[in-house]
C-alpha cells in the first residue's frame, strides 16, 4: 500500500475563495493509499515547504500530491522540497486546482467537486510514478563550426576567446563567405574587406582554432556533448605546412583563362590559385579540372618553381575524425538564379528575363564585384558585354522573392537595403548616370536603415518606381525593361545599359543533405529550422546544435553577427559544465517484446531510435531490436503511441500512469 501525502493550498484566497480546501483535504484523506492530507495557506512559502518535508519524515510518505497552482509554476519548487526531504523528486506531482479550477469557476460546490476529482486523479498517478534519476552525460568541450562566412567566423572567435577549442570547417579554399565579395556595406558604407579581413586573420592565428578549409563534413554521429564528426579534407595538391604563400606558382601557371567564380566570372584566374588576395589561409589549391598536369600530364611548372617544395600532385583526400560537444551550423546562403531550372525543382526560372542569357543583366553580387575596389575592374562600373560605362542602370527588386508563382513566397530581407546601396555606389562612381529602381515595397526596418534608403532617393537621386517588371529583352546594345508604375497607373519602358536583379536569398544547394547528416530539421525551402521561432531562435530542436547566419533565413550582417554571438554564448553555457543533467523523461525499449518493426524509428522526430543487434556469446546475430539513445531522445512519446507491440515506454508518462488517471473518472 502506498503512503501518499496530499497538501491542499489556499493560495491566500486565490483557491480557498471558490474551493472548500478543507473539504478537498478531508476527501483526499479517504482515498485508499493516502496516509496524510492537510491544507495550508501558502504551500510554496518556506513554512509550507517545511510542512511538506516534516510530513514526509513523520508519515513515511512515498509520494506527494500538492494541490495548488499549475505545475508550470511550482513543480520545480515542490520537487526540490521533496528531494531535500529524501524523496525521489519524480514522486511528487501537482494537482492544478487554481488555473484549471478556482480561477475559472464561480460555483463553490462545483469547483470543490472538481478540485477533489483533480486530486484523486493525481493521487492515482503518483501511485504509479517511478523513481527517476536525472541523466548525466559528459561534455566534450570542443566545438565544431560549419561554414566560415562572417557567421562562422564570429561564432568561432567568440567560443575560442572563451578558452574553448574550435574546429572550423569551410568548404571553399578560403574563409570569408559572401561578405568577402561585398564592396561597401550598408548602412554605413564601410568597406567590407576592411572590416572582414582582420577577423579572418584572427581566425588563422587563434591558438584555439583549428581551421580546415577546402573541407566538408562527411559524417556526424553522437549527441549533445558527445558528437563525433568526420571531416573530409579535399586534396589541395599543395602541402599546407610547407607553403609560404609566396604566389610564384600562380604567377607562373600557364593556364590563365579560367573564369574566376569569386569574381562572378568577371575575371580570370590560373589553375593553381587563391580565390582572392586576402584569402585565409593564403595557401593555393590546384583546380584539377582545369590543370594541364591533371588533364594530360604535360605540365608541372608550379612544382618546379615552388621554392619550399609544397606542390604534391599525388595528394589524396584525407578523413579526419574529431570529437566535439557542440555544433554551430553557419553555412549561409546562395542567390537565386534566373536561368532555367531543372525539371522537378519547385522553383522556376525567369524566361521573361531571358533566362540569364542577356550579358548586361546581372545579379547583385556581380554588381558588388564590379563596385569593389579590389574587384576585377578595380572598382570601375562597366558593362560585362563591352566594358562601357553604363549611363542608365535599372535595378529590379524582389526577383524570385515574394513571388509565389515562382516558388518562393518569403521576403529576402536584405535586397531593399543593398539595392539602395547599389544606387549610391553607382552614383558615386558615375556622376552623370541615372539609377532606376523597380520595387514593390521598401522594407527598411533596421537601425538607421530607413534614413539610408531615403538618402538614396533624396541625395543620390535614384528614381524609385513602384511596380513590377514584366519583361527584359536585348535591343541593339540596350536592354529594354518593360514594367509598370502602379502609382501613376502606366506602363513604363526604359532602355537600360545595365540591369541589376536583386535575386532571392536561398539556402545553399545541398543544405538538406547536411541537415540529414546532422539530424536537424529544415523548412520547405531548406532553410534550417530553429527550435522556437521566438524563444529559441538559435537552438536547433536537436540538442547541442545551434544556428548562425543566413542558413536559418535571409539575414544582413548585423543580424548574422548577433545570431553568431548568441550561438557562441549557447555553446559556452553548455561548456560551462563538465556534465550535462537532463530531465529523465526519455523513452526506453523493452527488448524482450520489441519485434524490430522500427516503426518508432520512423516516427521519432529526433532520430533517437537506433537499431541494436543482440548477439549470443559466439557473436552470432540473434535478432535486432530498437534502442532509444537517451542523450538524443526529446521525450515526446510519439514512439510509444505508435509502437504496435507496446514495447517502448516513455518514463514519466507510462501507460500505467495515464490509465490510472483515466480510471478515476
Amino acid at each position, binding site marked *: 500500500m502506498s503512503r501518499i501525502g496530499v497538501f491542499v493550498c489556499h493560495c491566500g484566497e486565490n483557491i480557498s475563495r471558490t474551493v472548500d480546501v478543507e473539504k478537498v483535504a478531508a476527501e483526499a484523506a479517504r482515498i485508499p493509499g493516502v496516509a496524510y492530507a492537510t491544507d495550508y495557506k501558502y504551500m510554496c512559502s518556506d513554512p509550507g515547504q517545511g510542512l511538506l518535508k516534516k510530513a514526509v519524515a513523520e508519515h513515511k510518505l512515498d509520494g506527494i500530491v500538492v494541490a495548488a497552482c499549475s505545475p508550470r509554476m511550482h513543480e520545480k519548487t515542490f520537487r526540490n522540497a521533496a528531494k531535500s526531504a529524501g524523496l525521489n523528486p519524480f514522486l511528487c506531482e501537482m494537482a492544478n486546482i487554481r488555473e484549471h479550477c478556482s480561477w475559472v469557476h464561480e460555483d463553490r460546490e*462545483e469547483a470543490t467537486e472538481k478540485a477533489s476529482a*483533480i486530486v484523486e486523479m493525481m493521487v492515482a498517478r503518483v501511485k504509479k510514478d517511478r523513481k527517476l534519476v536525472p541523466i548525466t552525460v559528459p561534455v566534450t568541450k570542443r566545438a565544431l563550426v560549419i561554414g566560415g562566412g562572417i557567421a562562422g567566423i564570429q561564432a568561432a572567435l567568440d567560443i575560442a576567446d572563451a578558452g574553448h577549442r574550435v574546429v572550423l570547417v569551410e568548404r571553399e579554399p578560403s574563409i570569408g563567405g559572401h561578405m568577402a565579395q561585398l564592396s561597401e556595406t550598408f548602412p554605413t558604407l564601410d568597406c567590407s574587406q576592411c572590416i572582414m579581413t582582420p577577423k579572418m586573420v584572427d581566425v588563422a592565428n587563434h591558438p584555439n582554432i583549428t581551421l580546415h578549409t577546402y573541407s566538408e563534413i562527411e559524417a556526424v554521429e553522437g549527441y549533445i556533448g558527445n558528437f563525433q564528426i568526420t571531416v573530409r579534407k579535399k586534396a589541395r595538391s599543395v602541402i599546407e605546412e610547407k607553403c609560404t604563400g609566396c604566389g610564384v606558382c600562380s604567377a607562373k601557371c600557364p593556364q590563365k583563362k579560367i573564369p574566376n567564380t569569386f569574381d562572378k566570372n568577371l575575371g580570370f584566374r590560373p589553375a593553381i590559385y587563391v580565390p582572392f588576395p586576402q584569402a585565409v589561409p593564403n595557401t593555393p589549391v590546384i583546380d584539377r579540372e582545369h590543370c594541364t598536369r591533371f588533364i594530360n600530364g604535360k605540365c608541372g611548372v608550379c612544382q618546379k618553381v615552388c621554392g619550399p617544395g609544397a606542390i604534391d600532385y599525388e595528394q589524396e583526400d584525407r578523413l579526419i575524425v574529431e570529437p566535439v560537444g557542440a555544433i554551430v551550423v553557419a553555412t549561409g546562403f546562395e542567390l537565386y538564379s534566373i536561368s532555367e531550372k531543372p525539371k522537378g525543382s519547385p522553383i522556376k526560372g525567369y524566361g521573361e528575363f531571358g533566362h540569364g542569357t542577356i550579358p548586361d543583366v546581372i545579379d547583385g553580387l556581380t554588381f558588388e564585384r564590379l563596385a569593389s575596389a579590389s574587384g576585377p575592374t578595380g572598382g570601375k562600373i562597366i558593362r560585362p558585354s563591352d566594358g562601357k560605362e553604363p549611363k542608365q542602370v535599372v535595378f529590379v527588386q524582389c526577383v524570385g522573392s515574394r513571388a509565389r508563382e515562382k516558388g518562393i513566397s518569403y521576403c529576402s530581407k536584405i535586397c531593399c537595403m543593398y539595392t539602395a546601396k547599389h544606387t549610391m555606389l553607382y552614383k558615386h562612381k558615375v556622376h552623370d548616370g541615372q539609377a532606376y529602381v523597380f520595387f514593390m515595397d521598401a522594407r527598411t526596418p533596421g537601425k538607421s536603415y530607413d534614413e539610408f534608403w531615403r538618402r538614396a532617393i533624396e541625395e543620390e537621386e535614384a528614381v524609385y518606381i513602384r511596380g513590377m517588371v514584366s519583361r527584359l529583352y536585348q535591343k541593339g546594345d540596350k536592354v529594354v525593361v518593360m514594367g509598370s508604375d502602379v502609382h501613376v497607373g502606366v506602363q513604363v519602358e526604359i532602355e537600360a545599359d545595365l540591369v541589376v536583379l536583386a535575386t532571392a536569398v536561398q539556402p545553399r544547394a545541398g543544405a538538406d543533405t547536411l541537415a540529414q547528416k546532422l539530424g536537424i530539421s529544415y523548412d520547405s525551402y531548406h532553410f534550417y529550422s530553429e527550435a522556437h521561432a521566438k524563444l529559441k531562435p538559435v537552438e536547433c*530542436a536537436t540538442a547541442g546544435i545551434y544556428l548562425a547566419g543566413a542558413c536559418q533565413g535571409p539575414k544582413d550582417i548585423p543580424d548574422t553577427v548577433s545570431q553568431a554571438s548568441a550561438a557562441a554564448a549557447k555553446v559556452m553555457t553548455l561548456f560551462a559544465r563538465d556534465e550535462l543533467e537532463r530531465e529523465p523523461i526519455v523513452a526506453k525499449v523493452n527488448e524482450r517484446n520489441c519485434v524490430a518493426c522500427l516503426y518508432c524509428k520512423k516516427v521519432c522526430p529526433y532520430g533517437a531510435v537506433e537499431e541494436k543487434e543482440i548477439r549470443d556469446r559466439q557473436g552470432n546475430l540473434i535478432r535486432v531490436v530498437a534502442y532509444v539513445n537517451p542523450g538524443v531522445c526529446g521525450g*515526446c512519446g*510519439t514512439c510509444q503511441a505508435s509502437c504496435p507491440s507496446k514495447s517502448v515506454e516513455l518514463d514519466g*508518462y507510462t501507460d500505467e500512469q495515464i490509465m490510472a488517471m*483515466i480510471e478515476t473518472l
Partner: protein
Amino acid sequence: MHAHKENHDFEPKIIAFVCTWCTYAGADLAGTSRMQYPANTRVVKFPCTGRIDPVFILRAFQKGADGVLVSGCHPGDCHYMAGNFHARRRFAAFRALLDFIGVDLQRLQFSWVSAAEGGKWVEVATELTERVRALGPMREFKELEAEEQWSGVIDTPELQEAYNNIP
C-alpha cells in the same frame, strides 16, 4: 464570459488530453485571465499529442467520459517538431474507426490551442460540454466494463507468454 449556474438534468464528464507546451499552457492562461467555463472538464497532461494513444480515448469512454477532447499545438508549432503531425494522422484514421463502430463523433473533439489562446481553450471546452450535454450520457462502452481488465501494464504473464511463443 460568465457561466451562471443553471440546473441541468445531466452533467457530462469531459476528459481532455492535452500537450503540456501549448494547450495545457493555454488552459493556464484562461485561468490567469480569470475566464469562466463549465466545470465538467478534467485535464490529463501529455508531453505531446504524439504520445496520445487512441486506446486512452476508448478507455476514457469506457470509464465514464461522455466526451473526449484532444488538443495540442498548431501544425508547425510542435515543441517536438513533428509529434503533432503523427498525432493528426493517427487520429484521422482513428475517427473513421470510431465512426464505423457507431460512436457519435460529436463526442470526440480534436483542436489546436496554443499557449497564447486562453480564449480559445474556453471556447472549445464550453462548446464540447454543451454539445455533449445535449447528446446525453454515453452508454455504449460502459457495458464492456466487466470484461475488459487491461490497466496499461505491459508485462503481464499472458503477454509475456504470447511473446515467447513468437517464433
